[in-house]
């Protein structure tokens, strides 16, 4: 018995140790899964793994959109609260070697930032987005990224459902006319009429068109439709707005012709719309762009992007400052706010615009960061301006930049950091 005592004592000690260790074990597993997974395996079905990151959806999208050629994809700010905002994570889920991902601002117009350290031979930091041909369009926290944009060749998304009230016409005799057919203009879209509602499964931002047997006026003119005469009746068309954060979109704004072109007969305004967007990206003369917007506004007065189109039509023209200021003075126009860096407006004017006035005090959110870093970039020459210093500090405070410079951060935030660092 005495000889067995050490063994007995060791067993007690081991049991206590095992108990103490086991008490702290937190299993990163789901206890409910084994039974269901085993059932699946017995039925020769492969259990599906959950994936906490949404990035895999991008890989699915690339396959759905049949994108050809290399893609240099701009991503949201890395440290914005979104699973899409990390180029490293995102690239890991994209098994397309021809896709290169970057945390960038929206790639048009182009921005190049270079840090040169006095006394150093090399460039310390360089950002240049001039070769980007696509931007991820995605729900990013409470907003949709990109917050700012100019124009695009095509806008593709994973299938999203768009429900639109089915339009009705009133003919000359006051009779209600129902549509006889509905179609889309792009092979990535499908559409069906369900009585009062028309449901579109959309993968491409392009019009939905209803065919009517006779001409007439819209029953509800304020609903955002365009009416055109057709050979044997009339056609009503509609362009849905960009997907909102509630749609939880995953898509791309393409800055090069990369997907299949529209295939069927489109309304006249769609051709104008396409020509206008291409004219912006290709820097066609301002007069041509202004004419296209003007014609588009006549053909489709309720087009969802007209305000924005009017601003970007003047981009690069001496009238741009006035056009931009007019739009920004009415309300905070987020899509064109970052173009402040391309204006020649004085800070004394811009600091009183709604975007800045509505900026909440304290910690910045995604939108606040975008607003603040855009003006820091625009008014970088005003080194002693207290408000700009405060905005730059608040931008930096949102990310790892507050403790460490990481060049894979969002370039505009990087600029705010460098601007503060460069101060004497």
């Amino acid at each position, binding site marked *: 018995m005495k000889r067995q005592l050490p063994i007995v004592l060791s067993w007690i000690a081991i049991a206590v140790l095992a108990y103490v260790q086991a008490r702290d074990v937190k*299993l990163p597993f789901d206890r409910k899964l084994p039974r269901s997974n085993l059932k699946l395996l017995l039925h020769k079905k492969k259990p599906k793994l*959950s994936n906490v990151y949404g990035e895999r959806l991008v890989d699915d999208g690339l396959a759905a959109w049949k994108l050809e050629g290399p893609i240099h994809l701009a991503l949201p700010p890395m440290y914005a609260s979104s699973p899409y905002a990390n180029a490293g994570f995102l690239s890991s889920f994209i*098994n397309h070697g021809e896709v290169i991902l970057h945390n960038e601002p929206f790639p048009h117009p182009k921005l190049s930032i270079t840090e040169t350290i006095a*006394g150093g031979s090399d460039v310390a930091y360089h950002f240049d987005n001039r070769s980007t041909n696509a931007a991820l369009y995605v729900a990013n926290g409470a907003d949709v990224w990109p917050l700012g944009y100019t124009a695009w060749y095509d806008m593709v998304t994973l299938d999203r459902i768009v429900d639109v009230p089915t339009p009705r016409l009133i003919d000359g005799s006051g009779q209600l006319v129902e549509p006889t057919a509905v179609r889309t203009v792009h092979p990535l879209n499908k559409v069906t009429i369900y009585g009062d509602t028309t449901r579109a499964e959309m993968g491409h931002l392009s019009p939905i068109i209803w065919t009517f047997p006779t001409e007439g006026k819209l029953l509800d003119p304020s609903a955002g439709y365009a009416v055109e005469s057709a050979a044997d009746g009339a056609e009503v068309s509609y362009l849905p707005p960009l997907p909102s954060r509630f749609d939880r979109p995953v898509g791309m704004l393409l800055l090069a012709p990369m997907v299949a072109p529209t295939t069927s007969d489109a309304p006249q305004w769609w051709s104008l719309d396409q020509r206008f967007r291409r004219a912006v990206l290709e820097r066609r003369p301002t007069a041509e762009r202004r004419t296209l917007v003007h014609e588009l506004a006549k053909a489709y007065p309720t087009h969802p992007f007209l305000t924005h189109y009017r601003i970007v039509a003047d981009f690069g023209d001496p009238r741009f400052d006035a056009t931009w200021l007019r739009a920004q003075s009415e309300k905070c126009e987020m899509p064109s706010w970052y173009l402040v860096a391309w204006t020649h407006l004085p800070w004394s004017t811009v600091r009183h615009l709604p975007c800045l006035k509505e900026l909440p005090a304290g910690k910045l959110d995604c939108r606040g960061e975008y607003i603040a870093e855009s003006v820091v970039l625009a008014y970088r020459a005003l080194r002693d301006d207290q408000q700009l210093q405060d905005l730059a500090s608040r931008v930096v405070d949102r990310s790892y930049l507050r403790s460490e410079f990481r060049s894979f951060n969002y370039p505009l935030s990087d600029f705010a950091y460098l601007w503060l*660092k460069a101060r004497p």
Partner: protein
Amino acid sequence: MIDAFLAFFLVSLLPIAFLGIGGHTEHVLFIGWRWLQVVALFASSLFVVYQLARRDRRGLAVLALVVVGVAYLGLSYLGIAWDAQIEYNRVLQLAQRFGSITEAYRHGVTHWIFGYPPGATLSVAFFLTLKMISPNVAQGVLLALWSGSLLTRHLRHVDVPTKIVFFVLLATGTQLMWHFAYFYNNLFYALVWATFVFAPMFGSSLRPWEWCGYALVLVWLRPQWQIAAIPIGVGALAALASARTWNLRVLRDTILMMTAALAVAWLGSTYWRSASAKLDEAMSRENADVIANITAQQASPVLEIDVHTRPLAQQTTTVPPFLSRESVDAVVWAYHVTAHAYSLSLVVLAAVATLALLILRRRGLVFVVPLLSPIGIVLGTAAFAHYYAAYRANSWALERLQIITPILAAGSVAALHWTVRQRTRA
């Protein structure tokens, strides 16, 4: 007796040796290797089961329990949820798509991919070939293979209660399940590390080729040979401490094996570093080609911004000397990081070492050796801090590397239990 786990791992790492070949030949070798790995997996598993069935049926029963546990966890596995897993998986996905490891890295897009050397990835590559649910489930298979190999190769003479004690304490070890689910590079590294220490503690030993083979596995799981030197050195100390008699021959043999293992580790590390530098260049070239191929359809005004920052001299951080206040701070910091996560394991290691010295005297020295592993990492942080001023940003990496601590604690307790039982019986 062949170490089946080591044999499998060496086969699994073969594509790293193909990196210099490139082109069509590497592609053909890679395709052949994928099936060779599956053959190696089945052969190793069958070997383990056959040996246990023939010589140690109780050991086979213990292995069966381990397999049941691993299968349960495999079935309750939730899904990929960690950056390391994603990168491991990505190397495989790209290798499969583009036909070789060289091409996988060339198309890797982000340089982050080099933060996760391909050893861990390749070890579970058979999950794609066998169409398993995920690489993590394949990792479970490998954990079972390691257990079987340990039972066959080093625990064959150990009694069943000791085996059970070991696996129970291992399974309940601090953060082991977390590593099992997410971060298998560190887990495999720790299991190989532990093999160096456990073999002498359980009365077994590693053969010269096993020393060298495991050294190569270590540096192809984690390319810093300086870190691999800790398990190799600790393994040599364990071999010396467990020797029945101390004489010049034992000392010479141990030093020779350790030197050979260190040489292999250094060569393996140097090879991977030079190969990865070339791969890195190839990736940069590939990325540049992709960007060049994107014909910027839109002409656009470029807003060029130059920022001139302070002179370089004002920003450069001074490198502290090896023996300085900063080095002491680094060691203290590393100790706190380790103790924060693994305090219980450290206490257990210290208690086992003390008890063993009290009970076994000179023969208890081998039980002090496991404690040197976490201490080696803690002290090594001083050297790390010398080269990398922002070393404190790596606290998570340090904590994960120290997963060796609970594994060694489980082995130490089991080994002491076995030794005491043997003495009691005698």
